[in-house]
């Protein structure tokens, strides 16, 4: 009897430590594994078109897809915005696409 209780305590200790061993944001619960992704927020530089860019360009991915690119001229950014619409199905009107390409090339690219 005593040994059973002791064993139970030991098992639960091992079990708890297994859960603890998973670092921040990871939970192992029997056959189930879950993670919680960190809530990182990418902010954009203030400027005309920032709101539009921020609204549409983070529907499918974080805005660091924009901020980590190298510096490109406007024509290249226009092509990227077109690719997002045509290839990946971004719901962006032509008017907004223009605002976005202007904003990104001004603040993250090589001018207008």
């Amino acid at each position, binding site marked *: 009897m005593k040994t059973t209780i002791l064993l139970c305590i030991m098992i639960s200790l091992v079990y708890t430590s297994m859960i603890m061993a998973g670092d921040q944001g990871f939970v192992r619960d029997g056959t*189930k594994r879950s*993670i919680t992704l960190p809530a990182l927020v990418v902010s954009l530089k203030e400027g005309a078109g920032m709101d539009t860019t921020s609204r549409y360009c983070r529907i499918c991915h*974080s805005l660091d897809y924009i901020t980590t690119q190298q510096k490109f001229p406007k024509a290249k950014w226009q092509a990227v915005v077109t690719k997002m619409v045509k290839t990946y199905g971004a719901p962006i009107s032509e008017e907004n696409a223009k605002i976005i390409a202007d904003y990104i090339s001004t603040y993250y690219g090589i001018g207008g």
Partner: protein
Amino acid sequence: MEFKGVSRRNFIKTLGITTALAATGTIPPVLYASERRLVTYPEKTELLLLTSSPPQLETPLKYFRELITPNEALFVRWHLSNIPTSVDLDTWRLVIHGNVEKPISLSFDDLKKFEKISYTAVIQCAGNGRSFFEPPLFGGQWLNGAMGNVTWGGVRLKDVLKSAGIKTGSIEVVFKGLDKAALSATPGFLKSLQLDKALEDDIIIAYEMNGQELPMLNGFPVRLVVPGWYATYWVKSLSDIEVTVKSSESFWMKTAYRIPDDPCGCVEPGTAPKKTVPITRMTTRSLLINPEDGSRIKFGQPIELMGVAFSGGYSIKEVLVSVDGGMDWRPARLGIDIGRYSWIQWFYPWQPTKPGTYQVMVRATNSIGESQPLDGLWNPSGYLLNKIERHNLIVT
């Protein structure tokens, strides 16, 4: 390069300045390709942040001083933002269907009943090193950290396919994972292999990395391992395998992950290729890992340069080192060879004869004579990078 005030040479040096970022935090609006922050994601150690969602994280070079890359340090690269964040092995199934005798649905335990094999293989993103291309390119601005050397354990894809019975007329095998796009208009991440490739002995469905279960971010519970080929085929959180009679129309095969149809996989910088083919096998590479580029070394002390070398499935035959910017080349000593898919470590004892800045270059050649170009070969997607790297070591 067009960074304001950041030249090509300074580019690498700027990387020395990385700031740790808390798990929840705001990424500042100015974040050029030259800056990287360290972040901690679940089951991962501090890695260099490329994008936060879908996560793209790269391994700091210091981890490559070891032959085997620890699970928590292996890079992370997803394409679509709805990545699997929860998997219950009780209900998880791997489905094999399409042009087969009998479609099957395997539990995790069913899968483990097939013969287990394991080997060490380099995993490398097709775009590893993209940030070093000139002229620069769109896409993930990876440094050299989108790679690692891992011991994979799993079952042969061939055995699993055969248990479903491949019917005649089959030509391809299509792989799909649990990841999904944010919008249904975005093409799902489907990859395919020609049937004869898929039946090769060494391709496995891996359920172990270095003897442990896969981290969620590296594809728990199983991922495809296609040793020698770029990681774009190593579908994570694999859940669906379809044997088909037609070649795949997937965007990720037909449009993305393609290289110029030319032996070098290259075109004149800035030009478009006439014809392209899917990227497959890795090019031969060698890297200086320690001391890192830009390091200061005390004059008068002998040191040992070390690094890694690998190629797309053929053993490394020779690694040459130059400490004078490519004039004189001498062979490095190679570490233990643990198989043709693994990387091999190289070591080069060195005692500088006088203080100054030394340009160190390394060049590997594999067993079929493939080596590395002196100047970068260019392609419009920034794949296959394997130019001989130049590193400065400052002896004072």
